[in-house]
C-alpha cells in the first residue's frame, strides 16, 4: 500500500511529506536525544483527518507520533521506530472563551503565546497559567506532560486545570471526557470519567484534539518582586511562609553561575497581582514585612524591589551560553524540603561536567511540591559537550529519584528508572490499559515501553 498517497488522499498534498528535508527536521528533538527519522510527516487539520490516519496506521501497524510544539526537550516526540509524525500545529483555533465559567476551548495546536495574546486582546480580565516554555509550546501538549505555569502556586499543575478533552483513540474512535461528553458545556471534568488516561502518557494512548482549559481572573496590576538569600537551607521555609499568606501568583527560587554576582545566591521571583494600589500594598506588606521581615531584619535576606508588568517567558540566555544554541534540563516534581540538596548536588553535577549550573524550583500549590529543574547547556557543533550534557542529564534523573522526587516528563532513560521502581501492580495496570487502548502498539512507540 502506498502510505504516502493514502495520507495525501486524507489531508492533501501540501501537508504530507516523505522528502528528506522534512524527514530530517522531524527526526530531531531540540535536546540531546539522538535523532530517528520518521517515514512520513503529516500535518492534519481536523479530528476526522486524524481519525482516518489512525485507522490507516492501525490497520498497517505503522507507528504514529503526535507532535505539538516539540519543546519537551526530553525526546518525547522522536519517532524511534519511524512511522508517521503528526504535526498538530495546524489545528490552532481558539474555539470558545467562556467568560462567566472562565474556560477556553481550544484545538490541540493552539500555542501558549497565541492564547496569551488572544486573551489580552479579547478577554483582558482573564489569563491562563503560562509555562516558562517558549510561546510555541502548545496548551494541549503542556497539559499532556503535566506542565506548570505562572499560576502554579494558587492553582497547581496545568493538567489540574483541564475541564475536558476530545481524544482520537489509536483505533480511530473519537471520545470526549468531562461535561462535554454529555453534550453540556466544557466547564468541568468532574465528576465524569477521568481524563487521566491521556495525561502523562506522552501520546501513547491517543491523540488529544481539543482541550478545555480553566482560565483565571487577571488583575489590573501584575508584577514581580525579587527577594534573595545566601543560604539555600532557608528556601523551604521561605516557600512555606509566602504560601501561608496566600498572596502570590507564582513563587520561583533559582540560582545560577551566570551572572557571577548571583552565583551561590538563592533568588526568589514572587509574582503579585492586584486590582488597586491599596491591594498591592497590602499584599506586599503581608509578604515582605510580615512573612519575610525577619530575614531582612536579621540580614539574612534582601528585598530587591518590585517590577510592574510580567515578562513573557524568554528562552534562557543559558541556552546559548556555550554559543552553541543547545540546552536540556531534567525536571522533577520534588518535596519543597529537598531544595537545598537539589541545589548542592545539582551544582556538583554541573561542575563535574564543566557546565555553568542553573537550577530552579517553582512552587506548586501551597508548597505541596515544587518543580525543580537542572539545566545543562551544550554546543550543537561540539559532540563532546553534547555527551557531557547527556551524561549530566542521566545522573540528574537518578538524583531526582534518590532525593525522593519523581522525574517530570522523563525521557527514555528516566522512564526506565521510574518503571524499575514502579509498584508491580501499577505497572501491570498500565500495561493492561495500554493494551486495551492501543492493541497494536502504534502510538509513540519507545515511550513507557519497558512495561513488561
Amino acid at each position: 500500500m502506498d502510505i504516502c498517497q493514502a495520507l495525501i488522499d486524507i489531508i492533501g498534498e501540501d501537508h504530507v511529506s516523505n522528502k528528506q528535508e522534512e524527514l530530517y527536521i522531524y527526526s530531531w528533538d531540540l535536546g540531546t536525544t539522538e535523532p530517528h527519522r520518521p517515514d512520513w510527516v503529516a500535518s492534519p487539520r481536523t479530528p476526522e483527518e486524524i481519525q482516518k490516519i489512525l485507522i490507516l496506521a492501525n490497520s498497517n501497524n505503522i507507528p504514529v507520533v503526535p507532535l505539538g510544539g516539540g519543546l519537551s526537550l526530553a525526546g518525547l516526540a522522536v519517532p524511534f521506530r519511524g512511522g508517521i509524525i503528526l504535526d498538530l500545529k495546524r489545528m490552532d483555533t481558539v474555539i470558545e472563551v467562556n467568560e462567566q465559567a472562565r474556560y477556553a476551548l481550544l484545538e490541540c495546536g493552539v500555542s501558549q503565546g497565541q492564547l496569551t495574546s488572544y486573551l489580552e486582546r479579547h478577554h483582558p480580565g482573564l489569563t491562563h497559567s503560562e509555562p516558562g516554555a517558549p510561546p510555541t509550546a502548545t496548551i494541549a501538549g503542556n497539559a499532556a506532560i503535566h506542565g506548570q505555569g505562572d499560576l502554579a502556586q494558587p492553582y497547581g499543575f496545568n493538567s489540574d486545570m483541564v475541564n475536558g478533552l476530545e481524544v482520537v483513540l489509536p483505533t480511530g474512535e473519537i471520545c470526549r471526557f468531562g461535561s462535554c461528553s454529555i453534550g453540556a458545556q466544557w466547564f468541568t471534568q468532574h465528576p465524569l470519567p477521568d481524563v487521566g488516561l491521556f495525561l502523562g502518557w506522552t501520546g501513547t494512548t491517543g491523540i488529544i484534539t481539543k482541550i478545555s482549559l480553566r482560565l483565571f481572573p487577571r488583575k489590573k496590576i501584575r508584577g514581580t518582586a525579587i527577594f534573595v538569600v545566601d543560604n539555600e537551607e532557608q528556601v523551604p521555609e521561605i516557600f512555606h511562609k509566602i504560601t501561608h499568606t496566600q498572596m502570590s501568583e507564582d513563587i520561583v527560587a533559582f540560582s545560577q553561575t551566570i551572572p557571577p554576582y548571583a552565583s551561590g545566591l538563592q533568588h526568589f521571583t514572587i509574582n503579585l497581582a492586584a486590582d488597586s494600589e491599596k491591594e498591592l500594598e497590602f499584599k506586599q506588606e503581608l509578604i515582605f514585612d510580615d512573612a519575610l521581615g525577619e530575614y531582612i531584619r536579621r540580614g539574612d535576606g534582601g528585598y530587591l524591589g518590585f517590577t510592574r508588568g510580567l515578562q513573557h517567558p524568554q528562552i534562557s540566555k543559558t541556552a546559548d551560553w556555550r554559543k552553541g544554541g543547545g540546552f536540556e534540563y531534567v525536571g522533577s516534581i520534588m518535596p519543597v524540603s529537598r531544595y537545598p540538596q537539589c541545589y548542592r548536588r545539582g551544582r556538583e553535577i554541573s561542575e563535574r561536567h564543566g557546565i555553568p549550573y542553573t537550577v530552579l524550583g517553582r512552587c506548586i500549590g501551597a508548597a505541596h511540591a515544587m518543580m525543580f529543574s537542572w539545566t545543562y547547556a551544550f554546543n550543537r557543533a561540539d559532540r563532546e559537550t553534547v555527551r557531557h550534557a547527556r551524561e549530566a542529564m542521566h545522573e540528574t534523573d537518578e538524583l531526582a529519584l534518590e532525593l525522593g522526587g519523581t522525574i517530570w516528563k522523563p525521557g527514555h532513560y528516566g522512564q526506565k528508572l521510574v518503571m524499575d521502581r514502579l509498584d508491580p501492580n501499577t505497572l501491570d495496570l498500565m500495561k493492561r490499559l495500554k493494551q486495551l487502548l492501543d492493541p497494536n502498539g502504534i502510538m509513540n512507540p519507545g515511550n513507557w515501553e519497558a512495561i513488561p
Partner: protein
Amino acid sequence: MNAAEFQYSDIIHRCFRCGYCKFPVNWMDVNNCPAYARYRMETYSCGGRLWLTRAWLTDAIKWSDHLAHILYSCTSCKNCEMKCPLGINVDIINMIRAAKGLMVEQGRIPKEARDFLENIQVHGNPYGIPRSKRGDWMGETPIEQYNGQEYLYHVGCVGAYDTRAQEAARTLARVLKRAGVSFGVLGGDELCDGNEAKNMGEEALFEDMAQENIARFNELGVKKIITLSPHSYNAFKNDYPSNEGRFEVLHYTQLLQRLIARGRLNMAIQVPVKVTYHDPCFLGRWNTEYDAPREILNSVPGVTFIEMERSRENSLCCGGGGGNFCMDLLGGSPDSPARRRVREALATDARILAVSCPKCLTIMEDAVKVEGLDDRLIVKDIAELVDQAYIKKTEAEGKQVKDE
C-alpha cells in the same frame, strides 16, 4: 558541501529552534513567517531553514529541488530577526542569503529563481520584457526626463512593467507634479535596483547593478531620489552607500507626508471610506517607517483609518519579497500570505486596503480576486487615495466623491 565555504559556519548551529521567529511581536499567531504560514511544516520556518542549511553544509542531507524551494521561499521579511531572542538574530537573513548564494554558485537554484535572475541579467527586469519597454509605464502622462531636477523619481521594475503598478507609478507622478515637486525620471534608461538579486543570493549581480546605477546617478548629478518601491528605497538607502553611492533617499510616502505638512497637497475632496493599511516589510521592519503612510491616510478628508490586528512591526508579509512576487513560491493556497492578509483586511470592515509598495499592490490585488472579494475590498496605493482627494483650489468647495 564544505562548511568552511560558508561565511556563517561559526554561528549557524546556534539556532535553538525555539520558534519565537514564527510570532509577530504581539504573539497573536504562530504564522507571521510567510513561508511557514503557507506550508506549516517546520522545514519552512526560519529555524527549519537554518537547521537544513547546516545539515546541507555538513552533508547530513544532499541538495535537492525541495531544499532550494524551502530556502527561496524565504521573503527576507525580517520578522524572524525581530523576534529571535538569541545573539544570532542580526545575521539570520544574512545566513539565508549566504546559503542561497552557495546554491547560486553551484547553479542549483529553483527554476523560477534562475529565470528571475537571468531576466534581470539579460533584460534588466525579472519579467523578461525588453529593456526598450521600460519607459512605457508613463504612457501619455507628461513626465520629464531627469535632467538635473531636485529629485530623481525611481519607479523600479514592478512600477515600470506591471500593468497595475504602472497605474500607481503614473498616479504618483501626477501627485508630485501637482504639489510642485521638481523631479524627473530615467524612463527607458532606468535600471533595476538589485534589492531582490541580493536577497536571492546573487551578490555579484547586485554589485554590478549597484555600481551601474551609482555611476549613472553620479554622471547625471543626482543628489536626491524618491522611490515608488520600498525595496528600491532599501537598496539605495542601506546598500548603495557601501558601494560609494551616497544619495538622499526618500520613499514617496515620506515625501508626501512632508508635502501635506507644508500644505502643498490640497486634498479637499471628501473620500468617505474605511481604509486599512498593510506595512510593506522593506519600509516597515527594514527601515522602521511606520508613521508616514498612516499620517497621509489620516490626512485624507473623510477617510476612517482602521488598523489590522497585525500591523506595524507585527505585519504579516504579503509573500512578495526575495523575488517571490515573481517566482510565486508561496502562492496557490488559501494559506498563501497575501490571501491571509486580504482576509485580515476584510475583517476590519475596511473597504480599501491601502499599500505603499508596488509588489504588495499587485500581489494583494491578485489575492482579492482569488478570494472572490472584488466587490468588498479594493487595493489601492496610498498615492491613489491622495490623488482621489486632490482638487484644484478653485474647485475645492463642496466636492465629494462617492464611497467606492
